[in-house]
């Protein structure tokens, strides 16, 4: 789609194709207009190369002051709409000023691109990668074409991955010991653990394990925190007694998790928490929240 600066009818078609477009994996993203499109998937340090095709429409010719393609990595804060912060900006000049009167194709290449942050679409913040083609024109307004792509980065399994084991309670009311087998989980992992009841003096109705995502954007006085409960998984139905041990087996794949993002470019963080919730007969909630690290494991083919 052409973005026009100035209310002129589109004068040309710009198409961006990737060199390995046929073989590269595609993933869906939701555009601003609500539509879902498939775009190619890259990881950091990959080469991003392809072709730009500019085709003038209706026999018109396009006079321009130069054609360039940029690879941008952007962070956009929603409360600061329209304010994009480019943390990565690479440019390739494709053409010197001149005229395009018939379909012209320009190859482009960005080699070993550093894309340290993953694509992220959150509540208050978005991190995206985009190729932007600009045909510069003075008076007529530049013609711009965007092509989104997604970046995902992989982490090998951590060398140290301790379990989380803790005893918590309320004096004379409820003492439990919970255990999660790891502190770092990958996106398709399983949380395995158990809840052991040391003391039960309240009438418990049931117990859930929630996965919560906390997205914090901005800093200092301007910090916004959005917490979302992504999963509510029932662990126990009914009232246990002292000595009962309730197993946990929670598969992460059904849920829309992302890896943990810590202080991305000093702009935002995305953290995940396991929230163990016990509800008693009077609907009082007792909970214990515990942070976990989520990471993306390389996919085995």
């Amino acid at each position, binding site marked *: 789609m052409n973005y026009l600066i100035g209310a002129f009818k589109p004068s040309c078609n710009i198409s961006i194709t990737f060199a390995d477009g046929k073989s590269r994996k595609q993933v869906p993203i939701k555009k601003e207009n609500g539509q879902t499109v498939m775009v190619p998937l890259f990881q950091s340090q990959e080469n991003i190369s392809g072709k730009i095709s500019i085709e003038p429409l209706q026999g018109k010719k396009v006079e321009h002051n130069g054609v360039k393609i940029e690879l941008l990595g952007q962070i956009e804060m929603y409360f600061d709409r329209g304010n994009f912060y480019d943390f990565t900006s690479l440019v390739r000049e494709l053409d010197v000023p001149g005229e395009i009167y018939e379909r012209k194709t320009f190859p482009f290449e960005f080699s070993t691109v550093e894309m340290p942050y993953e694509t992220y679409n959150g509540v208050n913040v978005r991190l995206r990668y985009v190729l932007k083609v600009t045909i510069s024109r003075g008076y007529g307004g530049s013609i711009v074409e965007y092509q989104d792509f997604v970046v995902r980065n992989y982490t090998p399994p951590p060398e140290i991955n301790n379990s989380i084991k803790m005893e918590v309670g309320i004096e004379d009311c409820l003492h439990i010991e919970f255990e999660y087998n790891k502190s770092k989980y990958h996106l398709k992992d399983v949380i395995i653990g158990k809840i052991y009841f040391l003391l039960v003096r309240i009438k418990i109705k049931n117990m859930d394990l929630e996965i919560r995502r906390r997205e914090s954007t901005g800093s200092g006085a301007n910090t916004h925190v959005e917490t979302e409960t992504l999963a509510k998984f*029932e662990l*126990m*139905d*009914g*009232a246990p007694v002292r000595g*009962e*041990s*309730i197993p946990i087996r929670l*598969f992460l794949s*059904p849920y829309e998790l992302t890896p943990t993002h810590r202080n991305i470019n000093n702009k935002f963080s995305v953290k995940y928490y396991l929230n163990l919730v016990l509800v008693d007969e009077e609907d009082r909630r007792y909970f214990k929240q515990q942070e976990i690290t989520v990471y993306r494991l390389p996919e085995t083919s």
Partner: protein
Amino acid sequence: MVERAEDEEKWLAAGIAGLQQNAFYMHRALDSNNLRDALKYSAQMLSELRTSRLSPHKYYELYMRAFDELRKLEMFFKEEARRGCSIIDLYELVQHAGNILPRLYLLCTVGSVYIKSKEAPAKDVLKDLVEMCRGIQHPVRGLFLRSYLSQVSRDKLPDIGSEYEGDADTVVDAVEFLLQNFTEMNKLWVRMQHQGPAREKEKREKERSELRDLVGKNLHVLGQLEGVDLDMYKETVLPRVLEQVVNCKDEIAQFYLMDCIIQVFPDEYHLQTLETLLGACPQLQPSVDIKTVLSQLMERLSNYAASSAEVLPEFLQVEAFSKLSNAIWKVIEAQVDMPIFGAVTLYSSLLTFTLHVHPDRLDYVDQVLGACVTKLSSAGKLEDSKSTKQIVALLSAPLEKYNDIVTVLKLSNYPRVMEYLDNRTNKVMAIVIIQSIMKNKTCIATAEKVEALFELIKGLIKDLDGDLHDELDDEDFKEEQNSVARLIQMLYSDDPDEMLQIICAVRKHFLTGGPQRLPYTIPPLVFSSLKLIRKLQGQDENVVGEEASASPKKIFQLLNQVIY
């Protein structure tokens, strides 16, 4: 209360409606091979079982419908597996369900298909399922879920000779699975006792009673495993089951489960583990009706003994009698408040057992009667009819077994037991004794035995303390005395001297009977005497006139005294 029942009907109807509606959509999904929707609607359907509003009886109705629907789902899963869908993936997929109860029902259903597919050893899947079910801590819901697990796994246990048998010793895994499911189910079942307000205790106990077979079923299945031989039973099954029975400290569970154990496992196992089984009895709650349990056990063992003479040596080998009588003694000692009726019932069962297993051991029989006397002595003369009836039963048993009063007369404690009967029952028993003699045509041939016999039937012979004449019906009195009269024929010896002794003894006793009785009792005595006289007269005059010897003259003397 009526309100509640109506409400429950409403909720049940709503539950069934919800279930049926989701089942409808589930079927549609099954028909169009839509796995995703099948899982979605089956989970929704199963959510009806999350209700807390139904009593166990009504919950069962809902459960049965869900059960039927899950069979169709299981068939679908089987088809899917055949068509190449990964059963392991399916096993994971159903675990994505957010609510635990539907999740676990689905897991058990897939688990069943998983085991059948043999892609994993049966023991691993069973272990996982019985573990994961711990998430349901609500008693009724948990009991039904585990019952479901039990039902779908029933034919897939890695028993010896089954197609699911893995490497050696997998029957151990089958046993472990069943024991774990049993233990958890019993815990849930016991927990029901303490839920809810104190005033609803009776209702709760009724509900518990409705659910007991769900728990007991596990023991049935255990009992039917080929691999549970005597060793396995002795080393593993019985100790583990008893551990749970004792530790649960619940009267209802203990009574039911002890009875279950006795009924479900073979009698020879009970014989060989008698010590262990009996050892658990004193550890049970004092309020448990242990006498009924022990009586059941003894009844079974009695029948076992009666079934074949070949098993009798086993009884001796394990010293069954002494173990049982010790156990009973211990129980009676421990339960100070046990009513007499209970104690007598116990001894009655023991007596029956003894008569079946050791009929030749009169000393054992007498021992049992003696123990009974000891207990009765602490109570004094009995008033309640239940107890007296039970004593009559106790005393009748040897009569029926031996069909010979002479044998019974050898039991020194027999008359002592009779002491504790009230006068009326005493007479009843005396009649029973006489009837037994008449039926078996037992001849009582010595004066000594006659004395012993008359001691037993003294209630008929004379007025006992506290007897009131107008208590007795004329008809009854006539019957009684006629019985006594008929008895005389059976008191007979070929030896004239002995016969004279007999007649003297009888005469002595009859004379204490009082004017009402004599018209009945004396005539037969006279006839007996005359018979003797005739007999003597028919003999040679070679009979030497010894002092003690019978002579017609002596007899006539006696008779004269009697008639006047």
